[in-house]
């Protein structure tokens, strides 16, 4: 994707949506709690936003626990928030969380609570699309932690030998829960761990357009039938791993990353280059804030699901959920 084809305002809006949303989550969580424990993506928004930008609507996204942007750019806001509240308008009517929701309609592959377990399924989704002979690309997001899982190796190898249309995006935020990445791997770039014969690229995860470009190139490669790409986006999260955990990271490092805030970087660049005015941004912000507030209000008054909602385990066979088959 040449720079020419980027709609800068749209991209900024995607960033702002993600940031404002995450801020709202924190505010509400701190004020009165939210059933789904927030794992904030603040600071790393440009990775998800940038990678989604050059894709087609029917490409398949496979988010990590923290790729909030994917959800926000694909699913209705109301459903997302209801998903965090566990109310009946949420994904699968409250059966599951927002973190792991899946939807063929929105092109989001469902995931599990097992970090890194989605890497082979992502390769598999790409295989499925290859078999179905469409030109969908699958993009899997995962952290530095997931890159330590055994599966990282087999998923990349399989995708490479099968030349699958899939892009693996490491959101390297330098921390795996409470442990710094230096303690857990012995290399500087995680992209180097994966020497399977597929192209790899280390990118600046704070620069949204760099992410857009790298993903666009990888997507083209995938659509051309040339196989997978691995991108490692360097980034950082501003919040602790989860909102229940204390902050124990070095404040100076955190400051350094804050100085390269992905939204601020892009915002000031667009202002500088006159792609947008302060007023316009304020207007976008106001509009986003209203949408977000409304979604939270809707969730607060949404009802909890009925017990029957739970009995949705087999598609093809009715069963008596305590014992066996209903006849």
């Amino acid at each position, binding site marked *: 994707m040449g720079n020419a084809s980027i709609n800068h305002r749209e991209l900024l809006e995607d960033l702002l949506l993600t940031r404002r949303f995450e801020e709202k989550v924190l505010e509400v969580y701190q004020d009165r709690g939210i059933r789904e424990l927030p794992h904030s993506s603040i600071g790393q928004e440009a990775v998800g936003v940038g990678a989604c930008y050059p894709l087609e609507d029917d490409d398949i996204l496979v988010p990590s626990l923290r790729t909030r942007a994917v959800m926000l750019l694909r699913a209705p806001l109301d459903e997302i928030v209801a998903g965090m509240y566990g109310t009946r308008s949420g994904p699968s009517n409250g059966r599951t969380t927002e973190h792991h929701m899946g939807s063929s309609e929105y092109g989001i592959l469902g995931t*599990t609570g097992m970090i890194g*377990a989605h890497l*082979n399924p992502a*390769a598999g989704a790409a*295989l499925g699309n290859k078999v179905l002979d469409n030109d*969908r690309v699958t993009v899997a997001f995962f952290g530095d932690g997931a890159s330590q899982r055994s599966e990282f190796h087999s998923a990349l190898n399989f995708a490479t030998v099968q030349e699958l249309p899939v892009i693996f995006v490491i959101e390297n935020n330098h921390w795996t829960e409470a442990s710094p990445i230096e303690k857990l791997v012995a290399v500087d770039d995680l992209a180097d761990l994966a020497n399977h014969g597929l192209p790899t690229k280390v990118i600046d995860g704070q620069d949204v357009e760099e992410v857009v470009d790298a993903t666009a190139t990888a997507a083209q490669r995938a659509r051309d039938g040339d196989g997978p790409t691995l991108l490692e986006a360097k980034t950082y999260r501003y919040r602790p791993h989860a909102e229940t955990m204390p902050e124990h990271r070095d404040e100076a490092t955190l400051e350094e990353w804050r100085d390269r805030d992905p939204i601020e970087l892009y915002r000031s660049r667009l202002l500088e280059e006159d792609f947008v005015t302060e007023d316009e941004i304020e207007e976008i912000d106001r509009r986003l804030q209203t949408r977000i507030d409304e979604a939270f209000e809707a969730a607060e008054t949404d009802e909890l699901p009925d017990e029957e909602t739970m009995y949705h385990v087999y598609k093809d066979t009715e069963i008596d959920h305590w*014992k066996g088959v209903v006849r």
Partner: protein
Amino acid sequence: MSQQVDVQAEQTEQTIRESLNQALYEELERDDSVILYGEDVAEYGGLYKISEGLYEEFGDDRVFDTPLAETTLGGSAVGAALAGARPIVEIMYADFLPIAGDHLINYAAKMYFNYGDETSVPMVVRSMYGTGDGHGLHHGQSPEAWFMNVPGLKIVMPSTPKDYKGLLKSAIRDDDPVLFLENKMRYGESGPVPEEEYTIPLCETDIKRRGDDATVVAIGGMVYEALEAAERLSDRGVECEVVDPRTVTPLDTDPILESVEKTNILVTAQEAPTFGGFGSEVAAQVIDDAFFYLDAPVKRVGAPFTPIPFAESLEEAYVPTAEDIETAVIDAIET
């Protein structure tokens, strides 16, 4: 007793190996979204030659060999199924299933529940179990109990060539993830298979032999042992009803209960160790729902609580047989 096919239809004698190969062939031919992959399933035709000729027929887009990586087999099948394909993966020996356990237990089994739009996981994992060929500790374990307590999975363990074919075809067409377990000691077993196309529905318990004196619920390869035991017992004047659930989860319990209500005696038979196995679940359901019909303790036949031993003498002592079932029935009746 439900069969989709007219009992008068033409049948030919086929081995389980042949009936499975045909089922795969027919489904690959019927539906372009069906694919088959695994370690050495394509060019070599599968270690036990179940997929022989399919790669040549359908090409390597549809039938292909993979790296040695069971996490990839399990994991990629989930993804392919979620994307709309119908993958069949072979995880060579069922002993290897734990390597893909996370994808089966936590991914495949839970995605229909997790999605809100009726997306499901129409994948089939074919895998071999069966003890008695001297393969030792790790190439013959019966894995069903490892996955029985997992809502969302279906576990199918057929016995006869006809059931194998009809059930595999149904498993491939089924919208839920199916663990399809093949007994490698029985691939050569032959029996009548309809010539016309047919399927046999999952989750339907079948009565393999009628009898009024005792109910033997047997799964997989043990159905043959149960039938043999029934013949021997018949000589002694005891008529066994041999009940073959065919699908372990979700279990079609009613025919089991009905049988016990008639015979008042229950024996279960499985190849896996008894403790924590399928037979225990059957016994527990009967003791809850048919308690007042039971005349005697429920005897469970299974392997002892040890790994599968290698030496011939040990293996012989290990694998449950018709004789064990016979003894269990007599025991129960005489209590």
